[in-house]
């Protein structure tokens, strides 16, 4: 009975999991939110998503070709980066912005480090940060994105009408009430009241903001799927959102300490997108559960710091990028407990 057998070291069976499967599943989990964004912002949102994805995938292929490496665009990672980048820009940006952002995200954020698995920071967020630094006005204009029936208050700067932006300006007025005319202060009061009264709209996502960040509802649907499939753990979103909730309650109010509206801060801005889809990026988040809890809490602290003290109304993307850089340190200091304890000498 002459027969040739494969020989390899054990184990001889493998789970069905694979990198493409993970990447395409995460992409699929973003589709409800993507669909809603097209409903909310129109076909332009779809164009931006497609351009961003195309830029990422083509850049990856070209970079790998130039470096004479195998082309791995079929693994789905560039596709996911492209979609996430599009989720992080306004639907009003010029169409060349997502293209440039995508090229930067893949070329500088990923391929220069050695490609998938070696990038220290989330490429999509790095692309967004690059765009925000280079075209700050384009990146912060959300005016036409505000759909009918939404809650834009009487605050005069209508061109930056995300809820967090409105909130920041109203808070600024309230904090220095004596410097402003009375009607302005009243308007600010009214604005904050309106924001707090319309949490349901905030939850569904009928508000201004980046393409993919507005709908808490649709992002959560995808997140539940990812948690069920164990592509993400509860640790990072849990500690991230939890710490934002606590800190926003203490420091995030317009009337001093412990006046913050927790739900407003949790639902507004890019927290849901960031906590479930960006901070949980496998490559750029810590390896252990303890590490992930620390990482999420760190993201939460920086996010609230930027929202409350910093110059930007929103701090999710910078907080994640900063914490990305701390991951090697976190990994080194959060080794799991070895069975049987430390080595018996």
């Amino acid at each position: 009975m002459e027969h040739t057998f494969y020989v390899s070291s054990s184990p001889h069976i493998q789970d069905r999991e694979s990198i493409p499967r993970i990447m395409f599943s995460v992409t699929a989990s973003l589709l409800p939110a993507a669909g809603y964004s097209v409903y909310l912002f129109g076909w332009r949102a779809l164009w931006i998503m497609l351009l961003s994805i195309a830029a990422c995938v083509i850049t990856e292929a070209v970079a790998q070709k130039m470096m004479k490496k195998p082309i791995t665009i079929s693994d789905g990672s560039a596709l996911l980066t492209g979609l996430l980048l599009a989720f992080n820009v306004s639907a009003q940006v010029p169409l060349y912005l997502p293209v440039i952002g995508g090229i930067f995200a893949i070329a500088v954020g990923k391929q220069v480090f050695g490609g998938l698995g070696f990038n220290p920071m989330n490429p999509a967020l790095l692309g967004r940060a690059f765009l925000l630094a280079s075209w700050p006005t384009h990146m912060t204009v959300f005016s036409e994105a505000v759909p009918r029936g939404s809650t834009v208050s009487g605050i005069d700067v209508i061109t930056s009408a995300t809820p967090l932006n409105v909130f920041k300006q109203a808070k600024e007025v309230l904090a220095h009430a004596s410097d402003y005319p009375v009607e302005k202060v009243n308007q600010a009061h009214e604005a904050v009241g309106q924001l707090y009264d319309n949490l349901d709209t905030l939850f569904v996502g009928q508000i201004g903001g980046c393409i993919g960040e507005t709908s808490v509802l649709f992002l959560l649907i995808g997140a539940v799927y990812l948690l069920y499939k164990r592509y993400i753990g509860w640790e990072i979103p849990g500690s991230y959102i939890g710490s934002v909730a606590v800190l926003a309650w203490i420091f995030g109010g317009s009337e001093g300490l412990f006046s913050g509206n927790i739900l407003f801060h949790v639902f507004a801005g890019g927290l849901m997108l960031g906590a479930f889809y960006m901070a949980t990026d496998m490559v750029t988040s810590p390896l252990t559960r303890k590490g992930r809890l620390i990482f999420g809490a760190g993201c939460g602290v920086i996010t609230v710091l930027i929202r409350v003290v910093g110059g930007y109304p929103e701090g999710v993307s910078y907080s994640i990028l900063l914490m990305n850089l701390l991951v090697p340190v976190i990994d080194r200091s959060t080794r799991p407990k070895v069975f049987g304890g430390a080595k018996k000498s």
Partner: protein
Amino acid sequence: MNLFKSGTFHGGVHPAGNKRWTEQKKVEVLPIPPQVIIPVQQHIGAPSKAVVEKGAVVRIGDPVSEAGGFVSVPAHASISGTVSAVEERMHPLGSPVLSIVIDGDGEENWNPDIGYQADYLSLDRAIMLDRIRAAGLAGMGGATFPTHVKLAPPAGKTIDAVILNGAECEPYLTADHRLMLEKSKEILLGLQLMVKILGAAKAAIGIEKNKPDAIQAMKKGVAELNLPYEVIALPVKYPQGAEKQLIKAVTDREVPSGGLPMDVGCVVQNVGTSAAVYEAIACRRPVIDRVVTVTGTGVREPKNVLARIGTPYSFVLEQCGGMAENAGKLIMGGPMMGLAQVSLDIPVIKGTSGILILDAREGRRREEQVCISCAHCIDACPMGLMPKMIAAFVKKGRLNDAEAYQVLDCIECGSCAYVCPAHINLVHWLRYGKSEIIRAKRKAG
């Protein structure tokens, strides 16, 4: 009465069981093969020394080799006939090993010393141990550590618990399962003897919950023999049957890093070993056969067989309908920790719990990709290690770092490589790192 406090280990994986092909099938006694190949090394420790020469006539149960040291056991003729060669033959561990080849005489001539002795329970402890050693007993779960060594702990170590391993957590394998159904009394009588030898206060049998009939059979056996042992149903989780993980599950004690079960007062034996202990002491019957699960998509008629030690795989497979055409990988043992083989010209040895043949598609490892730090390997490791980090250290030759991350604690269960979505054979790298570190240590003295 609950003498045991159960715990559970961190991590583990849930591969498909694939036991349905053979779990309902009674153990079938294989015909006597025309020739057997008996290697002098079928256990961990020093090889045994051949005591027969070409031309010698042997009966079933006659020793053909003697122990080569304390951690060593003899081997026995498993068929009667004539020694046709004492030479190196291919061995399941991968390199040629001196083997005694016996051509059968077509008869069943047994060594007359083998036979039941009714008063075996009153034998002296030293005699019991000697019979175990003389019977050539080595752990039949697959690890093949000489049984008498485990049953004779050094002075100062007290054993209070004997644990029988009936977890059989390896997918596909059902040999222990069938043994627990068909030989529950022998298993329990063997346990009784080991408890006596060790002076242990308590004993338990740990069985995964996916074998409810085996749990029932063992419970029934315990009641009928009126023995104070506990049958513990364990969660179905690989590697539930790994020694340290089993001790944790049954007693909630953790064997210290670098330590042995006896450091926490435990001795673990496979259920098959236990039945063999009974036969060794009560009947002076050496290990001449064992239950082997022959299974997988590459086997036409999967079944559990009782095969003589030394039976060539080719003979075993002929009795199981032969090999399917798409057979792609031949494995001794289970799919998680078993050893891939290159040919069917190797014998069943004392540790052969299964002969598994996977088809070409299953048998091929998928192409390795880059690590995306998903940390699934860390979540899966039952020893709490960080396989991703250690593998990266080993690849770069940073053995000091690998050791600092406690690579020597790796039990090579394969959970990390099983879950890896990048198909990196992590356990391969950890194994390599371990061997390099141990080699460097030996060199340094």
